[in-house]
């Protein structure tokens, strides 16, 4: 199958006063037409910046896509001029954002906002666009769509606004929908409604979608493949069943162990990932997860591992870990039983007690001895 989207070695950086933030640091992946992909990670891991880069929506400055290529449907998005990119946004790639209130224009009616894209991209006239808008609103189950089309966003509830966003995203029959935490701001019963809708519509229209979320539960039932991101990089790629059944990266193990499950039979103690997420201005020199990994060895702190196929797993399963790769010391580890070295765990715990890296860096720059009493460089206004 020809790839719809091919991202190669994408690097997006933000140039700030404190230094260069390597928000996305060498991300590569492909997506076939109609395929669904989940990108999972915590805040600051670069998942949203990846999505914004695909649409070239990174604010410049301070942001910049410094390297890589994004080939969508045979064209390199990064080499297009602004007009061409605009014709792709909304038309071929649509985006659904986390917060439906801030992503809808509060002073325009719902129908005005949806028909705008129809008139622009599909060259419909006003009446036609209006008719299509109402159809779209019906499609996403807005009750009495005809009447509600002329309402303003504030007259809609959160779940309905998100459904309006979905209607808007679908309006031009895009080939790809990027959904960035589409349900995070919603309540759980509304989340179920919206996810259900998104899944059914994507299937019906054969739209490929990338679902970006921090919630492993959400992607479990929604996507065919999952990429796990950590510290600006993809650390594990696998299809959904494989990732949950046979994860091969200590970070993924940590995620799975640290979230309580609704169907857990007994009160098991959670095993948190100790320590703090990495500072992307000065990321760890070796594996980015090394400072928080209970399974770490010497090599992890010095040499960054590559994203490679993993033994004892499906052919398209890749992970970025020295331990689970060919010849590593974690090849046969059962992550459910063995939670790694207790000694390392205690060492990592100290990390939480300590200051976050960005504060330390700022202090090193200001040349203040850390923790020096009395001397305070902040102006206490």
């Amino acid at each position, binding site marked *: 199958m020809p790839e719809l989207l091919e991202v190669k070695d994408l690097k997006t950086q933000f140039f700030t006063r404190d230094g260069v933030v390597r928000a996305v640091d060498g991300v590569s992946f492909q997506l076939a037409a109609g395929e669904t992909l989940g990108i999972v990670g*915590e*805040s600051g891991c670069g998942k949203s910046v990846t999505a914004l880069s695909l649409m070239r929506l990174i604010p410049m400055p301070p942001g910049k896509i410094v390297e890589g290529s994004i080939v969508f449907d045979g064209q390199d998005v990064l080499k297009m001029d602004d007009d061409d990119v605009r014709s792709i946004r909304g038309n071929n790639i649509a985006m659904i954002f986390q917060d439906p209130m801030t992503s809808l224009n509060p002073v325009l009616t719902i129908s005005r906002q949806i028909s705008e894209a129809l008139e622009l991209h599909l060259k419909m006239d006003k009446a036609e666009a209006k008719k299509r808008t109402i159809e779209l609103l019906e499609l996403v189950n807005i*009750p009495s769509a005809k009447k509600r089309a002329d309402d303003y966003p504030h007259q809609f*509830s959160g*779940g*309905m606004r998100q459904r309006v966003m979905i209607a808007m995203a679908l309006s031009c029959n895009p080939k790809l929908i990027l959904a960035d935490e589409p349900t995070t701001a919603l*309540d*759980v*019963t*509304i*989340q*179920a*409604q919206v*996810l*259900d809708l998104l899944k059914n519509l994507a299937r019906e229209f054969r739209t490929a979608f990338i679902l970006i979320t*921090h*919630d*492993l*539960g*959400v992607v*479990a*039932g929604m996507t065919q493949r999952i990429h796990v991101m950590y510290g600006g990089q993809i650390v594990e790629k696998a299809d*959904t*069943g494989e990732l*949950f*059944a046979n994860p091969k990266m200590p970070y993924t193990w*940590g*995620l*799975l*162990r*640290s*979230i*309580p*499950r*609704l*169907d*857990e039979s007994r*009160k098991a*103690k*959670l*095993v*948190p*990932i*100790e320590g*703090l*997420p990495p500072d992307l201005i000065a990321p760890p020199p070796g594996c980015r997860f090394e400072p928080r990994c209970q399974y770490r060895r010497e090599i992890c702190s010095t040499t960054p591992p590559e994203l490679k196929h993993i033994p004892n797993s499906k052919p398209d399963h890749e992970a970025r870990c020295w331990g689970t790769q060919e010849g590593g010391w974690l090849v046969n580890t059962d992550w459910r039983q063995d939670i790694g070295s207790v000694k390392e765990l205690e060492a990592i*715990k100290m990390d*939480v*007690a*300590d*200051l*976050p890296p960005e*504060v330390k860096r700022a202090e090193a720059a200001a040349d203040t001895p850390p*923790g020096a*009493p009395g001397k*305070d460089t*902040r102006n*206490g206004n």
Partner: protein
Amino acid sequence: MATEFIQRSRSTARFDSGKNLLDVKALKMHFPLTQGIVFQRQVGAVRAVDGIDFFVEKGETLGLVGESGCGKSTTGRAILQLYKPTSGEVKFDGVELTKLGGEQMRKMRRRMQMIFQDPYASLNPRMTVGNIIGEPLEVHKLAAGKAKTERVQELLKIVGLNPYFTNRYPHEFSGGQRQRIGVARALAVEPEFIVADEPISALDVSIQAQVINLLEELQDKFKLTYLFIAHDLSVVRHISDRVAVMYLGKIVELADRVDLYEHPLHPYSQALLSAVPIPDPIVEVKRKRIILTGDVPSPVNPPTGCRFHTRCWKAQEICAEVDPEFIEHAPRHWAACHFPGA
């Protein structure tokens, strides 16, 4: 199955006290809606909490779940008298809190503390960590001078922070660390009861477990009683002994953890549980989901009868007319529904 639940003890949530640390009866918290500029007329009320009964036993964790706007946070605040309840009783260790005067209440507050949701908003950015944690010690005259400093350092250590950070400001810490500071502040006065209002929902997934474990450890160590308010049902299941489900200002179901999650009686609890995604694709494919239609109605004019009837798939005529009583359908399992069960 259903017949088992017929044996209803009519005593509406008549909880026997004694070992109860907290008894809440018919608690109502209405916020007035006013109109007019000079002369404000009351035109209605937001019935945030509208008559709830429950109790919390010594040493247990009661989880309070519900969607946003259901009144769970208001309940927590009304218990601590941070809001003056419209009516109802709140008994803490036998003392009726709603009738206490300012000074007496201040004394009671030493025994009950709160942990807030947003660790960015709940710590004063202009105070050092030492002052933040030390302030309750001063207010309640528990320690001063050197003893205070030592106590603050001890508290920092208890919550897993470096004790020498007393001169630091909140902005120098990460979200998870700030939440630890909030926990240390709550612990400073050695309370018996802590209301934790969504203490982890502002934190990252990998940090959430750290804070949950910390709260559990502290509970064991200091024999704390928690009212744990959250919207995340998996977390509530993990941490709670018993769970209360709220919908639109009412508790619709209250039961032991396992009982509630395995045999929910109220249709709303059933829908809520089925909506939670489980991180396991094999389970997800097989699960049957109850998708509720529509949104939560406004608490300004809630539906008549059972408040859930507008979204309930089991609703019949009676549901729109008669508000179901909160009844003990099985031992220690209360629900307010005309047609409870599967």
